[in-house]
């Protein structure tokens, strides 16, 4: 318990407090007028309203798509589910800017896709994605896998007899889904929704690429703009806006948490998970599901691949221009890329390795012990996740710059700061699905272990962790996918000694090596795909339901 407090305290609360201090008391004095002036500006209010409705709508969209996908993959006998789930999760790996650009190009006047079909826009008309609706649409699609992973984990714990009882009461698959399945997995759904909300509200890539041309200001774009402006108050104003954003996010998370908790979802999970037959609908549903994938995965992926295979960006891809030079460069020539990649890989694995046990323990306290202290810890972790990554970066600098009291040297400038920032930023990401998992476990399992004299630690390891395995795996996948090509947090923290791959890709872009950057992106996607396939082979011994893409 003490360790937990320390962990969350050091990694979430302290840097945040330091940031709050910078925001509210810039020069040693609390200046209410300044705060009011900054926050009450017409643009900030506009941006706040836009932010709220855009992220709420995007969350709704992501939740609907993600839940539907999870039901399809987890509950029905749709064909080729494993492959489909691969495809559904993979877009998380493609940077949002790439996705946004791919969609923009697909529907632009010069579209290689719609052009031949005669559907492309006439030049001069405004691009339909350059609108608030467009932002909602892309954010929704982009975040659906977050919801999917969380819901999928919940579905595995749903015992078949509950569904069978409803069917023997005469309920067809749709009412069963509506009345029994959805209420029982609501913990997972709203945990996923919370993640989607946070991810939408803080997604700079899509909001900037579509929002600025559409003249739809949002808080995150405002924050970045503030970040690029000069003047002594820039940092403080930015911190203030970031606190506002964090406030909104926490509100959103609180609402989803409240919605997700209502109703008893504890189930006896010593029976097998259910499966509903689609019957005659099997073929059309399968077709629809694959159609969706084609749009959401193939579109950005081909765009990425198309860029990676030519030397200069924008060259048409044909027999003459095709080259594997970029891949060769990425793999063999640039040592920096390889180093950055390895650093990212171990940072990500370390973050997963630390966060999972911490979340399981924290989840235990939150679910089965309760108390204000636990709630406080949770709030802090969510705040940390809610803040835009770049702000966390600033907070980390502010906090870790001075030599640490006990160690003597500062962590600043080393990979450890990045690790600390990851731990702080992603705690909520692992905590959410795991809390969803706890909601479905009957406490009596823990009690039975308590009787054997097992210590809290042993129980967490032997009873809670395996029981939560699907949620834990979902959490791990989420963190892995998010951290491996993470940009915003580490971009301020990388140095020549500590490089990560996400900023590396950005730097390549900035230096005009878009095609090389695309090649690196492709390699990352390929790597994740390989890891997923490997997990299928090595995961055979895992209990069913642990891997989201395996039944």
């Amino acid at each position: 318990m003490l360790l937990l407090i320390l962990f969350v305290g050091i990694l979430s609360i302290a840097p945040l407090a330091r940031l709050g201090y910078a925001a509210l008391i810039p020069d040693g004095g609390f200046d209410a007028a300044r705060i009011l002036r900054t926050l009450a500006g017409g643009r900030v209010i506009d941006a706040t309203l836009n932010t709220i409705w855009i992220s709420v709508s995007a969350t709704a969209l992501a939740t609907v798509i993600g839940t539907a996908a999870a039901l399809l993959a987890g509950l029905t006998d749709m064909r080729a589910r494993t492959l489909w789930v691969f495809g559904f999760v993979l877009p998380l790996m493609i940077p949002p800017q790439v996705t946004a650009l791919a969609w923009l190009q697909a529907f632009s006047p010069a579209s290689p896709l719609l052009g031949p079909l005669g559907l492309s826009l006439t030049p001069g008309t405004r691009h339909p994605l350059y609108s608030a609706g467009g932002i909602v649409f892309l954010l929704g699609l982009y975040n659906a896998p977050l919801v999917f992973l969380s819901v999928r984990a919940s579905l595995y714990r749903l015992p078949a007899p509950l569904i069978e009882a409803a069917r023997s009461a005469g309920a067809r698959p749709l009412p069963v889904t509506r009345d029994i399945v959805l209420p029982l997995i609501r913990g997972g759904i709203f945990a996923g929704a919370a993640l989607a909300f946070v991810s939408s509200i803080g997604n700079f890539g899509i909001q900037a690429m579509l929002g600025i041309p559409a003249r739809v200001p949002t808080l995150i774009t405002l924050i970045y703009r503030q970040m690029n402006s000069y003047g002594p108050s820039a940092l403080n104003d930015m911190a203030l806006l970031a606190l506002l954003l964090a406030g909104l996010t926490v509100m959103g998370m609180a609402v989803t948490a409240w919605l997700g908790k209502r109703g008893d979802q504890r189930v006896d999970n010593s029976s097998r998970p259910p499966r509903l037959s689609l019957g005659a609908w099997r073929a059309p549903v399968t077709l629809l599901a694959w159609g969706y994938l084609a749009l959401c995965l193939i579109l950005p992926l081909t765009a990425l691949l198309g860029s990676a295979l030519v030397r200069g960006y924008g060259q048409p891809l044909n027999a003459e221009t095709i080259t594997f030079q970029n891949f060769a460069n990425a793999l063999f020539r640039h040592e920096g890329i390889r180093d950055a990649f390895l650093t990212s890989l171990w940072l990500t694995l370390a973050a997963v390795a630390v966060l999972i046990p911490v979340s399981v323990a924290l989840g235990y306290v939150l679910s089965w012990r309760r108390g204000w202290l636990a709630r406080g810890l949770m709030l802090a972790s969510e705040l940390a996740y809610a803040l835009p990554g770049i702000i966390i970066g600033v907070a980390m600098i502010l906090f870790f710059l001075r030599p640490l009291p006990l160690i003597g040297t500062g962590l600043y400038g080393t990979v450890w700061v990045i690790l600390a920032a990851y731990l702080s930023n992603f705690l909520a990401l692992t905590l959410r699905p795991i809390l969803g998992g706890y909601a479905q476990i009957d406490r009596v399992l823990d009690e039975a272990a308590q009787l054997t004299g097992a210590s809290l630690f042993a129980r967490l390891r032997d009873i809670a962790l395996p029981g939560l395995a699907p949620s834990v795996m979902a959490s791990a996948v989420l963190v892995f996918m998010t951290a491996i090509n993470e940009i915003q947090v580490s971009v301020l923290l990388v140095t020549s000694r500590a490089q990560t791959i996400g900023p590396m890709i950005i730097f390549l872009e900035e230096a005009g090596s878009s095609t090389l950057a695309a090649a690196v992106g492709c390699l990352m996607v390929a790597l994740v795909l390989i890891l997923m396939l490997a997990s299928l082979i090595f995961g055979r011994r895992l209990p069913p339901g642990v891997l989201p893409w395996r039944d």
Partner: protein
Amino acid sequence: ETTLTLYTSQPPEQAQSTVDAFQAAYPDIKVEWTRNGTSALMNVIRAEIEAGQVQADVLLVADDINLGELKAGGHLMAYPDAPVENYDPATYDADMTYFGTKALTTGIAYNPDIAEPVERWADLLTEENRGQIAMPSPLYSGAALIHLHALTNAPDIGWAFFEGLNDLDIVPEGGNGPATKAVASGMAKYAILVDANALNAKADGSPIDFIAPSDGVSFITEPVAIMSTTDNADAAKQFVDFLLSEDGQKLVTEQGYLPIMPGIEGPEGFPKLSDMKLLGYDVQEAVKNDAEMREKFSETFGQ
């Protein structure tokens, strides 16, 4: 052996080659460098200043407004004996706190597959170009900000040009990267772009070319400066010396940019510095009225 900490916005490859060349010239100085975008670096430095623990000894960043601001805050050290004999005084600070190392001009890029070259800035403002011009935003990009300052300063261009762009539904966005992509991919016909971006892409085979308009280009100088808090002032000065030396300037050419020491050849395919009309601006003034300028820009483009 002294260790010098360098914060630079050069792309990683080039930063490495700069550091390597310097270390070869001064073997007893070791350089630890951090590479990042200019605005990210400025945020890091601001945070470091806020925390009272500035790590950097030397800065090598894209534009001088940022340095002007640091100078105004008293964070830069003057180096009166810097070897600037051969340089145009417009390229370095009169108070000897920062020194330009190269020239990056902002002109017009176009996609030769779908657009014709133009002569002057105003030629962009035609109805056929509605929504077809990509432009980095001064709110995000340093070069674009200086471009804004320089063009609005030029009497025969001024705000009218930007208002004209707005009338054509042009929305400035992001930095030079997206603008390059927009032209290269054919999503836009023209872009207001830094020379190196366009010309390097062209060299890679992208369908893009660069024009230096006859009524002038804005430019940034990638200045180098020494932090006032440095403990390694001597080594830092040697670093500045190196960049301003003939070897340093030749390195610039190798890296694909225009050197500013007169007499040093630029890379192939680049317009000569002397052939272009350079639009300057007053840095002190710019630092002062920067907020106002951004405000006016935001209003003009309704952002």
